[in-house]
């Protein structure tokens, strides 16, 4: 029997899921080792394999979701990058698009520019948008620029020239000139990283890539080595923000694709579970310690956005007001995020209103009940007070909670000043946190023209199943699903995706004037790149699939929609029909009398595994699953209407397939599902819990 391992790194814990060919799954949760994450990973793997006598050689694949790239950007610990631009455009990177992500904020601070002006240098050259070379590259000037950057000691060079999306010849020549001086210095060309129109977006994307290349390359090399020493020589694959996986070499060259790898894995997992359970409409809901994330899955498919702002902070208005963080134009699963999690701090503001988050107690000191010195009550403290979380059974009993301290903090800081009973105040916090998280769910549903009541809520993450049912009730949703291993679900999701590489080329033409020969040539070029990348990862022509897409818009519109292309021959007519339909769905109208234009061509190169990546059935042996919960009943409070109930506490396996009425609590190694009175829970296929909401 062979195994595949999913490893998801978070700020506090590293989650691991081991999946055998027969659908047997083991899980583990170990402390992360931020000084060198690979150490924690290898220890976690050894901890599961050794006692079971599993030969590391039987590990077929390791799939990884990592925050290494994101952290390097957020903590400004990336490489020292030099940037070469066209004369007149030295400041493009710093000027950005001018916009602010926050209204009325006089204290707003622009993100630090990743390349300071002194290492941004210009060369004389100019290519027009038609591809015509107006001014040839001044090679002597380029040499001087390169010498200056090398003398300054840069770790990597990014090159972004105006209109290089049309023709990268000057950028390539600059790389040759760098090579004459230094054989190994990483050089990122905008015409290769993102041959797409708009100079700021292309420059920023190229610079971010150069900024994290050395960090990610180094990390993946260390991890590969550490796995080898453990006896695992099978390929290491890294999750991408777009929902596909990629090999170590590709991830080291284009690390901008792995920035949001953890959250993407959760959505991919959610999509597969929805498919297995035959559900067409699902909203995924992932609630952790500091944030809650939501995404929409329809017929097993999720939406992707073409860009992200790394480190823009959690700001729902950010979906309207762009401008924060570091702009990266790569496809990423559309995930909305709000600052509400178990660690979110509860306070009363100057006007006397009860506020929850977005400040978080984090991992240190954490909630008051963790007894690590935290003073501010949090959402988790309230969930303990309400009896939803067991003081004795978090992480399978690995973490004991000080309920008394949570009670004192809530009583003195919140309930007392508000003149409320302890349980009413704690329930209020639970409800206010739900109100905030409802905004994330709306952002991916009603703001996209979908009615959330037509969707089931698929909840995971350490705190997702604690809040899912009350949250769904507040939005009049009718069904909640809690998948197996819900507390480490993203690590399971890592095991599902196929290998993918995404490519884009700007191809600005009127739709009806798109020349088939030119299009074929553009796709062939991307296909060649994809074929090469897949070959490195061991996929032959027979195991490779290529998906063609085009970004279209009505003339003068400022945003595009991506449509699939089956063939070049009948492209304009078919693409037009699909585009009109997509426009109708996204924006509520289409206009037959308007001209459409192509902006970009896209290609997804996909390596297909020989065996299915999603098991037909799943048998979970989670770390503490075998041990029973600490008590079989517990008092829990469900709001003024229902009051306190002596509530049964079950293991997942004990939940009848025929269903059982709430109130009840399903307690597991890595998460807790709360089922209030009036709702009914049943164990279904794939060990998923289905909760039907009463009334």
């Amino acid at each position: 029997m062979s195994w595949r391992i999913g490893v998801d790194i978070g700020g506090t814990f590293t989650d691991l899921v081991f999946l055998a060919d027969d659908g047997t799954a083991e899980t583990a949760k170990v402390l992360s080792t931020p000084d060198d994450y690979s150490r924690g990973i290898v220890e976690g793997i050894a901890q599961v394999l050794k006692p079971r006598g599993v030969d590391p050689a039987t590990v077929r694949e390791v799939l990884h979701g990592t925050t290494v790239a994101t952290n390097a950007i957020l903590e400004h610990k990336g490489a020292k990058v030099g940037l070469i631009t066209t004369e007149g455009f030295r400041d493009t990177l710093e000027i950005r698009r001018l916009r602010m992500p926050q209204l009325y904020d006089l204290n707003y601070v622009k993100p630090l520019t990743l390349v300071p002006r002194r290492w941004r240098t210009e060369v004389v050259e100019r290519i027009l948008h038609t591809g015509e070379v107006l001014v040839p590259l001044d090679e002597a000037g380029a040499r001087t620029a390169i010498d200056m950057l090398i003398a300054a000691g840069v770790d990597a060079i990014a090159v972004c020239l105006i209109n290089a999306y049309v023709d990268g010849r000057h950028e390539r020549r600059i790389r040759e000139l760098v090579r004459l001086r230094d054989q190994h210095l990483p050089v990122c060309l905008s015409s290769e990283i993102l041959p797409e129109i708009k100079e700021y977006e292309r420059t920023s994307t190229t610079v971010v890539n150069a900024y994290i290349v050395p960090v990610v390359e180094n990390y993946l090399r260390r991890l590969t080595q550490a796995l080898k020493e453990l006896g695992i020589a099978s390929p290491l694959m890294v999750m991408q923000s777009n929902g596909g996986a990629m090999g170590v070499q590709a991830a080291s060259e284009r690390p901008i694709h792995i920035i949001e790898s953890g959250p993407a894995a959760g959505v991919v997992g959610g999509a597969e579970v929805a498919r297995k359970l035959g559900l067409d409409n699902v909203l995924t809901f992932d609630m952790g310690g500091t944030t809650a994330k939501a995404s929409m899955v329809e017929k097993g498919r999720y939406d992707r956005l073409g860009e992200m702002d790394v480190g823009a902070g959690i700001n729902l208005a950010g979906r309207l007001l762009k401008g924060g963080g570091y702009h990266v134009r790569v496809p990423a699963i559309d995930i909305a995020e709000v600052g509400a999690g178990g660690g979110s701090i509860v306070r009363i503001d100057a006007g006397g209103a009860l506020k929850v988050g977005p400040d978080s107690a984090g991992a240190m000191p954490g909630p008051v009940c963790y007894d690590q010195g935290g003073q501010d009550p949090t959402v988790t403290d309230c969930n303990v007070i309400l009896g939803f979380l067991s003081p004795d059974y978090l992480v399978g009993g690995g973490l004991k909670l000080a309920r008394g301290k949570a009670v004192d903090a809530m009583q003195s800081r919140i309930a007392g000043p508000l003149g409320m009973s302890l349980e009413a105040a704690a329930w209020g916090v639970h409800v206010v946190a739900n109100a905030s998280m409802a905004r994330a769910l709306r952002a991916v549903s009603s703001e996209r023209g979908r009615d959330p009541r037509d969707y089931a809520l698929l909840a995971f993450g350490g705190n997702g199943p604690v809040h899912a049912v009350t949250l769904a009730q507040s939005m009049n949703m009718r069904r909640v699903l809690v998948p197996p291993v819900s507390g480490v679900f993203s690590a399971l999701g890592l095991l599902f995706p196929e290998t993918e590489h995404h490519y884009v080329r700007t191809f600005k033409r009127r739709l009806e004037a798109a020349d088939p020969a030119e299009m074929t040539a553009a796709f062939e070029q991307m296909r060649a790149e994809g074929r090469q990348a897949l070959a490195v990862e061991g996929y032959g022509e027979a195991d490779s699939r290529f998906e063609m897409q085009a970004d279209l818009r009505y003339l003068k519109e400022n945003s595009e929609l991506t449509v699939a292309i089956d063939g070049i021959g009948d492209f304009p007519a078919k693409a037009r029909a699909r585009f009109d339909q997509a426009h109708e769905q996204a924006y509520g109208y289409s206009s037959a009398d308007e001209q459409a234009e192509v902006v970009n061509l896209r290609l997804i190169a996909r390596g297909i595994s020989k065996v299915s990546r999603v098991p037909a059935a799943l048998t979970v042996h989670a770390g503490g699953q075998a041990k029973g919960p600490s008590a079989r009943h517990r008092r829990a409070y469900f709001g003024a209407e229902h009051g306190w109930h002596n509530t049964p506490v079950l293991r997942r396996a004990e939940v009848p397939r025929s269903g059982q009425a709430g109130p009840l609590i399903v307690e597991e190694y890595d998460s807790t599902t709360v089922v209030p009175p009036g709702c009914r829970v049943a164990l279904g296929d794939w060990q998923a819990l289905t909760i039907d909401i009463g009334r």
Partner: protein
Amino acid sequence: MAQSLVLETASGPHAATDPITMEVIQNALVALADEMAFTVARTARSFVLKEALDYSTALFDAGGALVAQGTCLPLHLGAMPVAVEAVMREFGNDVHPGDIFATNDPYDGSTHLPDVVLVKPVFLGERLIGWSTVLAHQTDIGGRVAGGNASDSTELYQEGLRIPPTRLYDRGEASHTLFRIIERNVRVPSLVLGDIRSQVAACSIGERGLIELAKRYGIERFEAYCQALMDYAERFARAEIGKLAKGVYHFTDYLDGDGIVPGKITLQVAVEVLADRIRVDFAGTSPQVKGAINSVYAFTRSATLASVRSILPLDLPNNAGYFRAVEVTVPEGTILNPRSPAPVAARGLTGFRIADTVMGALAQIRPDLVPACGSNSPDAGVSIGGYHKDGTPFVYLEFLLASWGGGPNRDGADALTGMIINYSNTPAELLETEQPLVVERYAFVPDSGGAGRWRGGLAMDRHLRFTADEAIFQVRSDRRDIPPYGLAGGAPGASSDVTIRRADGTEERHPAKFLTSVRKGDRLRIRLAGGGGYGKVAEREPARVLEDVLDGKVSLAAADRDYGVIIRGTPPTVDAAATAARRARTAQG
């Protein structure tokens, strides 16, 4: 439905409201106003709505008080209530389910003709429970100049179609007449009617959401919470104002001119901080002007409310409760409260200057927070219009802005939109594919930030080479004669400038507002102003000057001349002794 979430406070069933339900309803109202905003973003047709976000959404209670505003344009804070007031005044009880009212009259519910406001009454059964409203800047509204933003009209009648508060939908039935009138009066009817339809869609989203809330909580209870939310914002705002130092704070700033009659225009303000409210009085401001930069009272008040809002905590809800704590007085017949039919189309420029003026006074109240004046509002508006060889027209229109002024504890951000308006720029590469232009330069101007302990943000250059045969080039710029002010001893930022370098090499300078024709190969060089400096220049740490010199934002010569910092050698370092001596000499005068 979902009764399990209904909450009671410990203080018993007699308490009308509890803080938890209040927070949940506040969240729901803001989310609803934002959902309306997303609906506009999704369904609107025009660039001005989709990209410049020049629209706002708002929800009102039955009495016409603002209960929530969408996250849109700060300059519109306070521009929405006048529309609802105008409709209530005009139609009284003659409003019905399915009605939608429209107005764009700057003197009766709007603030200039391109801003069309739709107002939809919301009913639960027979009972009026609130109003759902959407303001949107239309791409064109007829009149003598396309776009409806021209600064050189001299009476309102030149500026386009004027719609007083009117019934656009009667019990769900669209007014064929009004739609036809609009269609026949604007240059781009498909865009304008498309955008109005998107406003209608957003009003309906707001209506549906308000009804759901009223059903869930019950009308009486819901209304009680709306009042409680406004009372809460009022209490919050008054408590924060109470913490400010009482007194009257004066400030004066200027516009270079109206482009018709020479001479600067004075904006004068007195901001009085009382125990629990703020009074803003614009007495002493110049009379209304010939050119179309007059700002009607509603717009002046709106710009003032947005400015004052920025010195209060970010989590203060934007509702009528906050408005109750701020009173705005403007003498009639001034540029900030003109009489009809004074032209108002380009009042945006004056709005930016109102904010600069009010912020100058607020800086005395919150010296720990308010920065020196920036060049971060679109003071320069540039348009180029003409025809290609094949007879097809082209129109290029761009509003340009640069940087922030230095703040009390940091340098002014180089290249960032101001907080009064949230504008973006146009990528050079996009511009080149769509217009007969080549962008030759878009970059910082060294030594242009006002010197001070905290440097003002840098000015920016935008150089365009014109590549078609011939066109008309129009500029509406400002901050040429009166640059952005410094504070606490900081120097003003550099002035703006516009020059044309003709294809034959001759250089032309023009006034801040002008119109001329351009030919192939002519280069248009627009220089924006720089931000003002903050604090005494002698207090600037020499190490910061060195950093700016290394980054080429300040030249070696300016380090010496403007900052008294002597930098020498390779790599460059601060000569501490020479700097101390130089600064001592300056201090002795």
